[in-house]
């Protein structure tokens, strides 16, 4: 089974599960009430539609896979019009690939940063995050690279701190450090 078919099965299954979970979550509301006073009416309609669409996606995915007419991946926000880009222009573009490791590391770092910003201190966490984040993404690690990223991290941290908490008057979270 191709990856695409697995993906469509996963998407369809997730939608069916989401629909089922919604029906379960609204089960505490009585059925058959007058629509105007039934808070569960709209969520239940959506839940049933989710289950239906989930099944449709699974079936469509399986049918397309059997016929070999699966659509190529295009990132979700693709324009639904086929555009022919001349080959010589395509050749000038950088080769594509993926870096899941850096993506996951950055996601984990952002989460740790978000926790640190509201427990440890916004400025401290921002400064550390900018340095570690840049290094994780491949910034130069020599002395010069570290100094440059350190200076930039200080400048950006100060800019954010002054911008949000001084100029915009956002309430500063109560933390151990600054």
């Amino acid at each position, binding site marked *: 089974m191709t990856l695409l078919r697995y*993906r469509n099965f*996963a*998407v369809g299954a997730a*939608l069916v599960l*989401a629909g089922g979970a*919604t029906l379960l979550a*609204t089960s505490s*509301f009585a059925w058959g009430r*007058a*629509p*105007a*006073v039934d*808070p569960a009416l709209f969520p239940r309609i*959506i*839940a049933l539609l*989710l289950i239906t*669409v989930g099944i449709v*996606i699974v079936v469509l995915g399986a049918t397309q896979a059997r016929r070999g007419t699966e*659509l190529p*991946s295009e*990132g*979700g*926000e*693709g*324009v*639904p*019009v086929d*555009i022919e880009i*001349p080959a010589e*222009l395509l050749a000038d*573009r*950088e080769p*594509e690939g*993926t*870096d*899941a490791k*850096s*993506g996951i590391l*950055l*996601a984990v770092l*952002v*989460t740790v*940063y*978000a926790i640190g*910003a*509201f427990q440890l201190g916004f400025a401290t966490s*921002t400064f550390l*995050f*900018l340095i570690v984040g*840049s*290094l994780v*993404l*491949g*910034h130069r690690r020599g002395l010069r690279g570290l100094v440059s990223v350190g200076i930039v991290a200080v400048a*950006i941290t100060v800019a*954010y701190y002054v*911008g*949000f908490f001084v100029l*915009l008057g956002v309430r500063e*979270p109560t933390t151990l450090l600054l």
Partner: protein
Amino acid sequence: MISNSVQMASIYTDGWALVLNPTTLLLILGSVLVGMAVGAIPGLTATMSVAVLVPLTFTMDPTSAVGVLAGVWLGSLYGGTLPAILINMPGTPADLMTTLDGYPMSRRGEAGRAIGIGVLSSFFGGILSVIVLGIAGPALASVARNFGSPELFSVAVLGLSVIAFVSGKSMAKGVASALIGLLVGTIGRDLFTGQPRLNFDEAQLIGGVEFIAIVVGIFGLSEVLEQVYKRQHLLKHRPQKVRNVFSALKDVWPLKWVVARSSVIGTLAGVAPGAGPTIASIISYGTQKQISKNPEKMGKGAPEGVAASDSANNAASGGSLLTMLSLGIPGDAVTAILLGALVVQGVQPGPLLFESEPELVSSIFISLLLANVALLVIGLLGARYFAKVLNVPRTILYPTVAVACVAGTYAVRGSAFDVGVMLIFALVGFVFARADIPKAPLVLAVILGPILEINLRRMLQLSDGDVGTTLGTLASSPVAAPILLVTIALFAAPIIRKLVSKRFGHSSKTETSDAVSERK
């Protein structure tokens, strides 16, 4: 009749007092600059720049807030032209068509000329769309003032259906995204009874999920993760030097009809729900290629290609604001974000806004006008400096944007819980991208969901819960009925087309094999 005319005229004049102050003017100028800088970086979309900067507008008055967001939006639409021309990478999806002719022009040393044509075309496209918005907006609002529940329900259904239909290549996944957005919109207190639902006993969810947290997560942080996943942080660019931008001033006059036509196409495409600058520029480019006197030159460095694309994508901005301001129904992700930002400011877009706050509506038109003027001036004078933005290391840029997402989300309500919501929706956005599920329908559905639900339940309430009577009410409305028919046709047409082509394909196969057997 005279007092009506005076009232109408005041909608174009009342706003000057609100806009013409140094703070607002500086904010508009600054926001266009920021938008251009952000748009010039491939991967940082116009939607993302508006989403990440929305929290910064909450301490501003509504006029300044709209001016800033419009400036960022228009600036980033233009800014995306720079990498499209200089390094063959569109800064925003709306600049995809600009690469086809802009980059070849750049390769033969005409980067400045291409950028100049892009700036001027964007300016004229933007101005035309603001004029259309100014004329059609009040007219549409006066019609919509008489809309009742059936009409509002049907327009919301159409808007959601169109965006689900046009986003991405899979209609089913577009619908799924919209349904998830509708579900998210039901979290919190029920609008009729006040009972909490789907909030999992979490007090912070009683008021619903914070819309800005959703938007920043899905269009902001998620995009950063997407860029890193696609190794964009490793790319290094050495764009050509930008010279002779002003030489385009004499180049645009021969292209005046291209710009005019593309501006009209862009404005109309922007009005259509779900279509936005990207689709506007594609339709415009395609149309220009059809009617060009030299179609063989398009795609090889023809200035008309750059003009057609850039005027349309900027013109779409005014068009898409039309339904948002006049009906209170956004047509795409950016206008959904703008609507959310206005609601947080205590301003409810819709037909009543034109009556209750004409000076605010007027100030919105004027802000857009001034943002386009700022775009022209900064675009022509600053093009070669903005090109240097491409040299900013993304290893520093992406973490900086991530900080903006976290801090900006926190700034909305001073709530760390919202930051958690933002992180969750960043994950949702990333998963959507991997699963080829479009994100725009989800965001629109969060906004449109309450409108759909309120009006549906009102209709059911008025018909004592009788579904048949409710359907009859919809069918008998001269506005709702045709709109719902269009919605049904939207979904039915591709299915019918597939069935017909299967049948004809089967028939012709049968005829061919019959003919072959007869010959034998």
